[in-house]
């Protein structure tokens, strides 16, 4: 019971922090709006100028919400990948899934196929196809017999990343008209987010999230190793395919609006595991909250540090996450789960 109370406390703290961060982020931005206006807008949208209202509601708020969704999505996807591969050094960015999703999006844009069917935008579908294909390729490349050695998996992922990134650069060179925007997108950026973006990805995001939530217990069992999991009655191959698919779909949906933002999927699951332990039923929700908060902070920094210029937020997350990855590599002997 003591542990139960402790966990509730952890969750409460995380959620309160998230709300505070979200509100605080409303006050910060490149255009100079004074705090009084923001407060009066929050409590009573009349009494502030239309342009201020637009900045707060159409620019800042969707960006805050999207930052949260993207951060949460990457953290959840990272946790799932780490559990399936049973390796704490896996993340959608490192193993090339983000690049795969990005390539899918670029191809769709390049070929001009951006069709909406039943109000569902197809960009995330292309991102998903790219991501799923990449995951499959990396998995098959890395497989040695019945085993999936970590090293070959990381190497295959990095190699795929290189190939896909150069493919993306090539497509970019061919399509020069909005180069800067694409470069930003490639580095990972939330600049120019709108409610439309959120509407576009939300159905895919929620569908994938639902699947993962449905399989939380199975993730724990998978951690015991595939053989043991099978002996405990888990249909391992099917579970793996479903979960890899769901995690790829989450990655794809967020990548299609934010580009490849690295290292959140690596760092956040780790930090969360340190706080609450390896049980995915507790881990995944908290990872989502922490991942969302983390990207919210990073993105707020990205849009204010060099205002009015915007930094791609991917630069900031990579600056924070890269050293952590090196630290993990160096500490391999210790128990890092």
């Amino acid at each position, binding site marked *: 019971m003591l542990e139960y109370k402790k966990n509730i406390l952890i969750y409460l703290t995380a959620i309160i922090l998230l709300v505070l961060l979200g509100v605080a982020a409303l006050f910060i931005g490149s255009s100079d709006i004074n705090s009084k206006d923001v407060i009066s807008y929050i409590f009573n949208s009349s009494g502030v100028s239309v342009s201020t209202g637009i900045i707060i509601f159409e620019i800042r708020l969707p960006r805050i919400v999207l930052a949260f969704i993207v951060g949460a999505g990457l953290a959840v996807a990272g946790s799932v990948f780490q559990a399936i591969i049973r390796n704490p050094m896996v993340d959608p960015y490192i193993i090339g899934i983000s690049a795969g999703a990005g390539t899918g999006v670029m191809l769709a844009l390049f070929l001009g196929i951006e069709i909406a069917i039943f109000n569902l935008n197809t960009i995330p579908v292309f991102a998903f196809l790219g991501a799923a294909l990449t995951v499959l390729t990396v998995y098959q490349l890395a497989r040695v017999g019945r085993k999936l050695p970590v090293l070959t998996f990381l190497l295959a992922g990095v190699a795929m990343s290189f190939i896909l990134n150069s493919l993306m650069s090539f497509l970019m060179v061919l399509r020069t008209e909005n180069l800067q925007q694409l470069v930003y997108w490639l580095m990972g950026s939330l600049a120019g987010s709108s409610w439309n973006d959120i509407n576009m990805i939300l159905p895919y995001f929620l569908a994938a999230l639902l699947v993962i939530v*449905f399989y939380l217990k199975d993730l724990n*069992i998978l951690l015991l*190793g595939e053989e043991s999991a099978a002996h*405990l*009655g888990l249909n391992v191959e099917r579970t793996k395919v479903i979960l890899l698919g769901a995690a790829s779909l989450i990655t794809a949906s967020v990548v299609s609006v934010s580009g490849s933002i690295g290292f959140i999927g690596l760092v956040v699951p780790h930090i969360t595991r340190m706080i609450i332990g390896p049980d995915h039923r507790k881990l995944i929700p908290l990872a989502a909250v922490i991942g969302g908060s983390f990207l919210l902070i990073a993105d707020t920094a990205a849009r204010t540090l060099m205002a009015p210029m915007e930094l791609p937020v991917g630069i900031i997350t990579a600056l924070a996450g890269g050293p952590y990855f090196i630290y993990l590599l160096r500490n391999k002997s210790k128990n890092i789960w």
Partner: protein
Amino acid sequence: MLKTDNIEFRYNKKNILKGIDLQINKGSFIGIIGPNASGKSTLLKNISRTLIADKGTVYLDKKILNEYSSLELAKKMAVVPQNTEISFNFNVYDIIMMGRHPYQKRWSGLNEEDKKIVKEVMVVTDTLKLKNKLINELSGGERQRVIIARALAQKPDILLLDEPTSNLDINYQGEIYDLLKYLNQEFKLTIITVSHDLNLTAQYCEELLLLKEGEIFAAGSAAKVLTEENIKKVYKAEVLIKMNPISEKPFVTVIPEANNKFKKERYKDFKIHVIAGGGTAQNFLYKLDNAGYPISIGVLNVGDADWQVAKELGIEIVEAPPFIDISKQAIEKNRKLIQKSDLVILSDLPFGHGNLANLEILLDFPKKKKVLFSNHSIKKRDYIEGKAELIWNKIIMEDENVILLKDKNNLINKVKELENVEMEM
């Protein structure tokens, strides 16, 4: 309840299992043994459906194994894999609770029955006190007990274990097998364990299955399966089988040097023949062997304490059945060994009808160097009305090559001395 029908398994085009027929009844406790690459782990994995046989069928309760769903099978059969290391930090309670997975609905929380069963298996496996510990904090034996508890939480009819003690210290090995035996007897749990430890399986398992190159070589009780002959054929090793006096189960000892191809180079060029019996030589046989002398011994009764030591050391023995006079052939064989030796040692053995020939033979070798133990007077060792004393005295009086040794502990020094004299000549 479990039956395999002529199963074959290939890996990399190599036949690992070449047609295994098995019939395992409910409540059995079976140990699968065999040398490396004999297919014992592969057989277990075919039974546990980790591997699927290329040919043949496995039946569990008269139903084909492959027709079970994962969940159904997990309720009937639990497996303790060879490598139980878990690289992340769940606590013991959570790990054991995972054994309830086949019974839990996706959304239902822990129900009372789950909690009750987990508590029961923790009591049985003595893991209750570890409940809140993290799995990585445990010792090897504790972790193994937790994994067994998790398997038991599945409420299986059959428990399969792959080398359950291979990474454990000897105290934990017994502990794990004690637990298995208890589960087998108390709960009629069917247990099949793969092990390379012949003695542990012999002590605990009701039946053994000895595999050789993917085929069943022998099956049945430990006494029937673990014979010197079987082990020589399967493992290509010379062993000595003794009976464990407590459990009356066979106990296998490797005979040192018997299988040693490098033996000759190590040995000195000074051969010693020992005449002993009744355990009078067991101490110094080890010492002489350690010092590197080639030793022969005879004539010894089969089963005699000195005979056992000599067997273990892999010494050449002239042996005779106990309780009867030594035969002519044995005496001749002994004579040949004495002829070949550079030194004869006669221990302080007692003489009776049966072994007087061992003393008499010395009269035929007046020119051989002899060390005679004289720490006990011959009178006390003579059980045939002075006959032995007579011969003894004759040797001492007439033979110039006799050295009497009062202190047994001086033997090695004396032998070394004699060896050096020999070398100088």
